[in-house]
């Protein structure tokens, strides 16, 4: 059977978390259809990408050691179709892409397809700033925009932004050694359309049509509004020094941002400032023209990459409505209180279990037979002959524990 690899390399904020969640939860159904999604944990491909690209990621990189080699081996060992998906692969350099394709068997006859899901830059720019904020950054929106617009692209924010968002450049790096028909672009529909359209496009690109997959979303990367993002940014500025990354992830990103603040629906949404809008639209047009010329397989419509008009009323996240931020903060405090209460109850339950275990242990110690055995062991241990006898007894009993 021909080995075939579908390598989904980005871009961020294009429904990738949802796709990866569906693929991970439906691994058995996929396997029954001859499709391998080699991931023993939902973020396995993320770790593999960190390992391939030697990227530090708030301490997670220690879990990533060796992850790329393991993933590549699983792909090479599977005779059929394999799928790899993570959006940070978009940032891989040409040499890293070269290594990735080599490790995945591109030179040994594996048919490699690169899939890139893409969304208009008008929505991607504010979404990337929000991702920065959800990853501990306290950079203002204005400063972020200045850095992104700097033609020199110096600094980590600008270089990262363009490495994962500049579609023609990503495809230069990932697609330069592939025929254009093996490069597939999945466009994210404009806002307001039926939500299932994006999945249908993914399904078409990955050849999942006809499979009975559970599409219920468990992991998504939801967006925040203007006051909610401003609040997280303020929390970052206040707590970053004290809050280690291992605590930030569950408390700030998951509990506050994803589970609590993303549920607030009435807030103004993040958008491009009207003065930046024309610059971004011009870029989008040049990208669409370039992609059209290259002849890639487009699943969806390239017109989806042309962002909508600027909002009629733009809310500046650097100068948010304090009333709205206060409302978000109250929701955040409520969530933290409820979580704290839950943890206290959990701690009380565990303390109760521990007390009960101690009690049982004490009772067993207080039993006359236990005390008698303990006394005997102590006496035996005091004499050389006794120690030998005790060792012989333990060996005969088949255990090496020194406990009585």
């Amino acid at each position: 059977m021909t080995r075939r690899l579908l390598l989904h390399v980005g871009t961020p904020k294009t429904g990738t978390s949802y796709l990866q969640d569906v693929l991970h939860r439906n691994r058995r159904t996929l396997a029954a259809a001859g499709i391998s999604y080699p991931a023993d944990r939902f973020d396995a491909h993320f770790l593999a990408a960190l390992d391939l690209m030697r990227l530090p990621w708030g301490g997670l990189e220690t879990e990533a050691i060796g992850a790329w080699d393991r993933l590549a081996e699983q792909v090479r060992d599977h005779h059929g179709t394999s799928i790899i998906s993570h959006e940070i692969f978009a940032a891989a350099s040409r040499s890293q892409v070269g290594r990735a394709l080599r490790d995945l068997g591109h030179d040994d006859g594996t048919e490699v397809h690169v899939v890139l899901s893409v969304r208009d830059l008008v929505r991607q720019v504010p979404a990337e700033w929000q991702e920065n904020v959800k990853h501990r950054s306290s950079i203002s929106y204005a400063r972020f925009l200045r850095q992104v617009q700097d033609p020199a692209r110096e600094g980590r924010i600008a270089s990262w932004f363009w490495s994962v968002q500049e579609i023609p450049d990503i495809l230069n790096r990932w697609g330069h050694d592939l025929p254009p028909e093996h490069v597939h672009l999945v466009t994210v529909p404009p806002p307001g359309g039926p939500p299932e359209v994006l999945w249908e496009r993914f399904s078409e690109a990955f050849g999942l049509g006809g499979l009975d997959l559970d599409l219920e979303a468990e992991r998504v990367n939801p967006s925040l509004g203007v006051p909610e993002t401003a609040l997280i940014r303020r929390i970052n500025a206040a707590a970053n020094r004290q809050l280690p990354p291992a605590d930030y992830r569950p408390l700030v990103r998951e509990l506050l941002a994803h589970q609590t603040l993303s549920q607030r629906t009435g807030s103004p949404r993040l958008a491009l400032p009207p003065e930046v809008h024309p610059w971004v639209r011009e870029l989008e047009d040049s990208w669409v023209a370039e992609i059209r010329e290259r002849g890639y397989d487009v699943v969806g419509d390239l017109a989806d990459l042309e962002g909508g008009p600027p909002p009629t009323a733009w809310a500046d996240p650097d100068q948010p409505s304090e009333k709205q931020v206060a409302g978000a903060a109250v929701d955040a405090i409520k969530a933290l209180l409820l979580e704290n209460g839950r943890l206290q109850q959990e701690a009380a339950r565990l303390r109760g279990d521990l007390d009960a275990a101690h009690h049982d242990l004490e009772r067993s110690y207080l039993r006359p037979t236990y005390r008698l055995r303990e006394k005997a062991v102590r006496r035996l241990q005091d004499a050389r002959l006794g120690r030998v006898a005790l060792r012989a007894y333990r060996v005969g009993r088949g255990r090496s524990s020194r406990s009585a």
Partner: protein
Amino acid sequence: MTVSGERRAWGWVAHLRDGGTTPWADWRGEGTREGVYLPGAQQLELLRRLHLAAHRDGGRPSPRLVERIVEASAPGRGTPDLELVGATDASPFGPRPVDPVDLPDAELTRVATSLIAEDLVAAGARRPHEASPLIRPWRTRYRLVGDPWLADPVREALVARGRPPGGRGSVVVVLGRDVATMVADAWTSRCFDEGSVPWREWLDPFAAGHRVPPRVDLERAAATWARRVGPARVRVVLDPGALPRLLGQRRAQRRRRAQRRALPQPPALAADAVDLARQVAAVLGLLVLPSQRADLLRHTFLPRLLDAPGPPLLLPAEHAEWATQRAVRMRDRMLRAGYAVHGDPDRLVPRPEAVAPAGASGPTDAGVLALAVRLMLDETQGGSP
């Protein structure tokens, strides 16, 4: 990509693979495509610098090292691999192509650290002292805290001699020296453990906040231990000559050859060497677990850095007043608390030679790159210990 530009670039790649040192801007030859993609400008310029250094020393990097550089990629977030200016059509996409000569030294060092880290992992940790399986029952019970750059090698040597720290009635030895040197020691120690931010990025917030790094604060360490074991069992040691006696080493020194049994001195390193260790630590963190990283840095990498040229890490002149104030405050508080101090308490005050002359500011990008290049050449020529 224009044909002539591409051929010229492949010609330059072949020239560099062959040991050439001509800068890209002066290169006029042509070559044929020898790979799927053109290596990045950072990798090629690093290779050229390697050849320049090798020519100066009369050596030559191994073909394997040459290929590793050509195929390398800079680790972490930062500037991506860049195209050579003039090798490609002026594309509106991707980062701007560059003349490699214009690349900052730090960008070349990024690529080099990846290769050095790989070499360290391949070499494995070489501990000079293994913990002795025989623990001396008659050993002096001690705990050694304070300046980690002073205390860690001493503790390790004692463990190797069957004298691990701890035990009932331990005396707590708080080891230190002048505050300016201890500040440099604290950053150095971090660089050889978990890595750190650059020197000034780490140092300046402490000075601005009128506080010292926790590992430098001898008074705080002494107070913490005094609360646990009582002040009578805390000794602040500012005179290294007092250390053997407090740690129970005097008799052993008399009986055996003094040189072999003497307590180790802290390694003296150039500022550039420490900064290179910091950068290599960041990459090692992506290749091995934290405990292995510290072992590789301290026991495999550090010996290679001992003869690195350059001035030591010194406190910048503008922070001398801050260090002096903190030292005086530390001295006064320790004396008020009544701890036994071995050595003149004024030894905490920065020595003039521990403060950099005005204008000097620790490691330099050029020095760090030169050292990285030298280490790569040593590795390929079998010159490493």
